[in-house]
């Protein structure tokens, strides 16, 4: 790790991908992706559907096994399932569909993993959960069940649930795409707050406002490759690649 293209101001890379490839049958979802994410950096990944954005972050915590290349998270190289368990403890993930556990209260959703995986005492887990639920503004709903909450509230619980494992990195897979428009901002606000507190984040999203405002770096993917990467200013004001320009012209037309 001598070279650090992620930007010197962030220090060493926390996540490092080299030549990562992923195939689904004959479909190549990732065709050699290189990416370094530094501690505290917020990377927003954008691109058309089917471009490999989701596959990229799903490979980082091993939900998809990559077929070639190397992925290193905090010095742990993902090779087999033992490494996976270790990596997953350090990497939080938030899904488009929230994926809360429906049979458990909000509180139990947040305390389950710390108690079962980290061996935290109930008291410690509950205290942590209450603090996190308060932080995402859901503390009053702690004893409700997921289906009693709105989508925005569920997604904030999902963020608290991931944070309860005290991850070093948070991955967001289109966290606001399944939400009604009026609920998008409450989730983005929580994410902004997280970024403001120095959390390392990789965010797949179509929210260009969020990318502009919060991202340290924007990554544009198409056809399983990283086409262009740069600061939000560079990216939105003078992108160099034609495909980036085309994509931006499509989504920023209105």
């Amino acid at each position: 790790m001598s070279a650090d293209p992620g930007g010197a101001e962030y220090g060493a890379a926390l996540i490092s991908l080299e030549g990562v490839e992923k195939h689904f049958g004959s479909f190549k979802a990732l065709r050699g992706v290189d990416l370094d994410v530094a501690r505290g950096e917020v990377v927003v990944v954008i691109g058309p559907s089917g471009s490999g954005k989701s596959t990229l972050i799903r490979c980082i915590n091993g939900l998809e096994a990559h077929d070639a290349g190397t992925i290193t998270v905090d010095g742990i190289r993902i090779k087999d399932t033992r490494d996976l368990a270790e990596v997953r403890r350090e990497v939080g993930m938030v899904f488009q569909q929230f994926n809360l556990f429906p049979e458990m209260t909000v509180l139990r959703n947040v305390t389950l993993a710390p108690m079962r995986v980290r061996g935290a005492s109930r008291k410690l887990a509950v205290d942590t959960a209450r603090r996190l639920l308060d932080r995402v503004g859901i503390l009053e709903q702690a004893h409700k069940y997921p289906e009693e909450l709105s989508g925005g509230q569920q997604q904030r619980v999902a963020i608290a649930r991931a944070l309860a494992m005290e991850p070093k990195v948070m991955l967001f897979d289109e966290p606001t795409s399944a939400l009604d428009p009026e609920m998008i901002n409450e989730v983005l606000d929580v994410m902004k707050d997280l970024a403001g507190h120095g959390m390392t984040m990789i965010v797949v999203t179509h929210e260009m406002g969020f990318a502009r405002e919060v991202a340290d770096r924007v990554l544009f993917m198409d056809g399983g490759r990283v086409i262009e990467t740069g600061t939000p200013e560079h990216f939105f004001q003078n992108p160099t690649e034609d495909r980036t320009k085309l994509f931006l012209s499509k989504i920023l037309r209105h």
Partner: protein
Amino acid sequence: MGNVVTPAILHALLKGAVLSVELSLLTYGLALVIGLIAALMRRSRALVVRGLARFYIELFRGTPALVQIFFAYFATPQIFAWLNHSVLGPLSGGSVQLPPHLSPFGAAVLALSLGYGAYLAEVIRAGIESIHKGQVEAAASLGLGGGDIMRFVVIPPAIRLMIPPFGNYALALLKDSSLASTISVVELTLSTERAISYNYQPAMMWAAAAVIYLALSIVGSFLFSYLEVVADPIRRRRGRPAARLATAGEGPGDEGGSE
């Protein structure tokens, strides 16, 4: 009705009904265990294990319960005799022997539990497979292991989905337990037949038998409706039926406890 419905006849019907319930409960319990094993085998990664489970399920779903009962009762003596003579005898020197035949009750339990195990296996498999993949992924990405994911994330909601079909098969089994009468298990149907041979009142006696089966079914049906409420965390907390039964045992009061 004078001596048409004597205490002895009532007693015989009651005894028959009790045996029907015992036969059904024992069989259902075994069928659940068999079904769970078969369902897990069907989800195995090993082709042979999967194939075996599939073979068992198709075999028992595809043959009539009555044929299975006859096989268990009338065919096993011949098979056991051959096994004793040709397999167990030479292997163990005669120290391990199968019995000459199964008891009627044993044969009925064996046949019906294997038959219903095949149906319940499919119910269990469908329940497990209906759990949204995203919940499993969320659990995995929190670092939970396979056993914990099954125990905390997959099984509880899956059971909730399984309860209505479990109820269906329980009622079907109660009624199919009458097939055991054909191999001389004196359950409700056979005790009714025998009672009729004493009092010559088929209309009244078969109506009585039907009413008893119906009453048992209704009890079973209510039991499963109650289980549906218990398995649903939100309805459980609102505690409509739960609150009524709460006096008999655990309170509903710890809603939202720190569990």
